[in-house]
């Protein structure tokens, strides 16, 4: 009996030592970062750009390996990350509001409590654009036209249940105007249809129109402060419309990470915000950076879930 207790204490002590050693050693092997999109997509570029900086801040020769698991708008990858071992050796990329909207509009094998929220890194705000020569060259004129002829203004955007869609819902609720949604497969085809005058208006993200400002009327940006990508572009708040919305990308780990590992990761991610070299690299790949870590990121996700849930209950999109 005594022997048993002895060995149990010993085992317990050993486990404690091992646990401490674990945190000190972390990371002792390569960390896998699961990206839910193909190599070369916006999320993939973010992960690959951030990886060397995270390695630097984790120190001790840490190494991050990006693994692409594309499919189902990122759902395959994020499901894999949510269900991985919570040991800090599997991280994943996370997109908002998409990942939360998927838990509402289809069956998902994860929910908002499945994750340890590390950091949101990119916040790409929405913009409203209209075709050149269409006459709708200000947000006031646009809203006026949509109110006078409900449904006559066609809106090109990427798929339903994404940030573009929620932006339009917010605009409709705010103004009472009514639009006809034309959901293209992705932003680039929507932008092209807009340039060709096949739709009247578009909801895109600032990074997607930064290179096209001469070809389109960009009416405003949905942020509190003006964006670095187009400093001359007024926000909607400046123009009297309280619209804040955007597409976000960040990093998560499975829920239940050991506390010290979590602290170490959070610390590494938090340092991205002030790293000039990182900021420059992100700007070159058209990723507007806004670092939000830990609990704040979790709150942000929860808020977006509630928004999506509310929209879904009022006007389900499929």
């Amino acid at each position, binding site marked *: 009996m005594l022997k048993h207790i002895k060995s149990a204490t010993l085992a317990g002590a050993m486990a404690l030592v091992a646990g401490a050693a674990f945190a000190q050693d972390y990371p002792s092997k390569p960390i896998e970062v699961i990206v839910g999109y193909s190599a*070369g*997509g*916006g999320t993939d570029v973010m992960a690959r750009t951030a990886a060397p900086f995270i390695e630097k801040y984790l120190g001790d020769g840490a190494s991050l390996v*990006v693994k692409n698991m594309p*499919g*189902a708008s990122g759902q395959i990858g994020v499901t894999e990350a949510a269900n991985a071992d919570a040991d800090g050796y599997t991280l994943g990329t996370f997109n908002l509001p998409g990942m939360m909207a998927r838990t509402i509009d289809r069956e998902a094998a994860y929910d908002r409590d499945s994750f340890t929220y590390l950091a949101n890194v990119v916040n790409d705000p929405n913009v409203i654009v209209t075709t050149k020569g269409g006459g709708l060259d200000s947000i006031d004129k646009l809203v006026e036209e949509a109110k006078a002829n409900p*449904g006559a203004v066609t809106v090109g955007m990427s798929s339903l*249940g994404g940030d573009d869609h929620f932006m339009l819902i917010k605009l409709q609720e705010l103004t009472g105007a009514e639009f006809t949604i034309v959901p293209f497969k992705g932003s680039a085809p929507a932008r*092209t249809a807009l340039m060709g005058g096949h739709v009247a208006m578009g909801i895109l993200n600032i990074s997607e129109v930064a290179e096209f400002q001469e070809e389109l009327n960009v009416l405003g940006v949905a942020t509190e402060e003006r964006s670095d990508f187009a400093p001359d572009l007024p926000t909607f708040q400046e123009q009297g419309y309280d619209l804040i919305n955007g597409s976000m990308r960040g990093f998560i780990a499975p829920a239940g990470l050991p506390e010290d590992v979590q602290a170490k990761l959070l610390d590494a991610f938090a340092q991205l915000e002030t790293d000039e070299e990182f900021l420059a690299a992100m700007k070159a*790949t058209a990723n507007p950076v806004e670092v939000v870590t830990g609990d704040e990121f979790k709150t942000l996700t929860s808020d977006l879930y509630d928004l999506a849930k509310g929209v879904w209950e009022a006007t389900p999109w499929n």
Partner: protein
Amino acid sequence: MYSELLHALPEVIGFSNFAAVIIGVIAGIVVGAMPGLSATMAISVLVPFTFGLEPLVALGLMAGIYNGAMYGGAIPAVLLRIPGTPAAVATTFDGYPMAQKGEGGFALQVAVVSSAIGGIASAFALMLLAPPLSKVTLLFGPSEVFWVAVFGLASIIFLLGGNPVKGLISACFGVFVSVIGADPIYGTDRFTFGQLEMLDGISIVILLVGLYALPPVIDLLETPLKTDGVESSKLGTEPIWKAMPRMKGFWKTWLRSSVIGIWIGILPGAGGSMAAFMSYNEARRSSKHPERWGEGEPEGVAASETANNADTASALIPALTLGIPGTAVAAVMLGGLLVHGLQPGPMLFRENPDVVFGFMWQFLFGAILLILLGGSLATNSFARLLNLPRPLLGSVIIVLMLIGVYSIHGRMFDVYLMLGFGAVGWVMDKLKFPLPPVVLGLILGGFAEENLRLALRIGRGDWSVLFQNTTSLILVALTVAVVVGPIVKRRMIDRRKHAES
């Protein structure tokens, strides 16, 4: 713009950048020539790897692979009737009969010369006409693109083969497969049975490898012959300069197919296979002896191979200027550009002229290098490989099919799906159901539906939106002409015969 084009040249002919193109072309030919491996797969594997490379080295590799693979796909298409890439399906029509007649070597020479010509024409279009051609792309909204797809689907009629009922079954099957996945507008699941892997639709490469490569592999194992029918001695290769005079009558086909390929390339979504099918049909239509087509007519190989290379560089026109790639391969390449901070758009040409114009030069060099690298040497060495004992060749192809399909998305699900299509393909092959309508149906069915539904959204449910502008009406007229024309022509010939007798 043209001075910037010249300014970019010295950089491109630097050692490492030029070597990248050469390596790319060789790798591309090999990948294309291996049944099961495709250009899409090769470039998706390459993209993450290029993170650490200089932009022009990375882009040179990609340009080389793309050009090389579009020709490489012709090698197994001619020798084994397995198209190495989706765009080489039309090459099998006359290429394989030629090989059976002992003209395989000549077929491959026609293929390499035609590929190079198509590629060069396309590179020039990209270099000199990218901005104006991107304006043409803008003319095509959803309703116009819908009509382009219908036009393409109408050409299925010419691919039905001997038994129209079986041909139509094939076409319906292809179109049905194209609707599997998320609904294009609402995103709801259609026939995915809860499998997330099927939500993005079924990749053409998976279907193609299953339908086209598995049945021949089973055949290789079924009949225990020592070697395949095509032997290098019977390949009939002679030096390429000696073969050139036999091709001098092809210039009309080369010209026509180049134009078709470039045009299809600038329209987003349709891609190389449609270009090859259309150019094959047009070439046959204007041939003096259409009855020889399908029996080993070298001009058929020329038409298909010119067009599938002519849409390589031109597919990058909408990709670079508008961010909408013209083919699946161009879509993957766009990712490669993004990795190097090259954002598509009108500013791209102003902000990074050396890289963008350098990339264009690399396409041109890639196309020219095809003749040198893809000539007799490459062709002969591959023909030798096919002389392997049949069971061995079969088992090697099985391995290639598995890695080719697995590597696209990195998942076994696709491999099982491919085997399922393989079983279907084997039955179709034995019962003489034609395979080309399946391929065209898969490529164009979902594409037509998506654009029709977008057009209806824009027209708020009013179908007349499909006929509201000139571009649409021209396309409708063309489609009607293609479908009704041959029937009217045959009637008139019959009537004349009647009157004469």
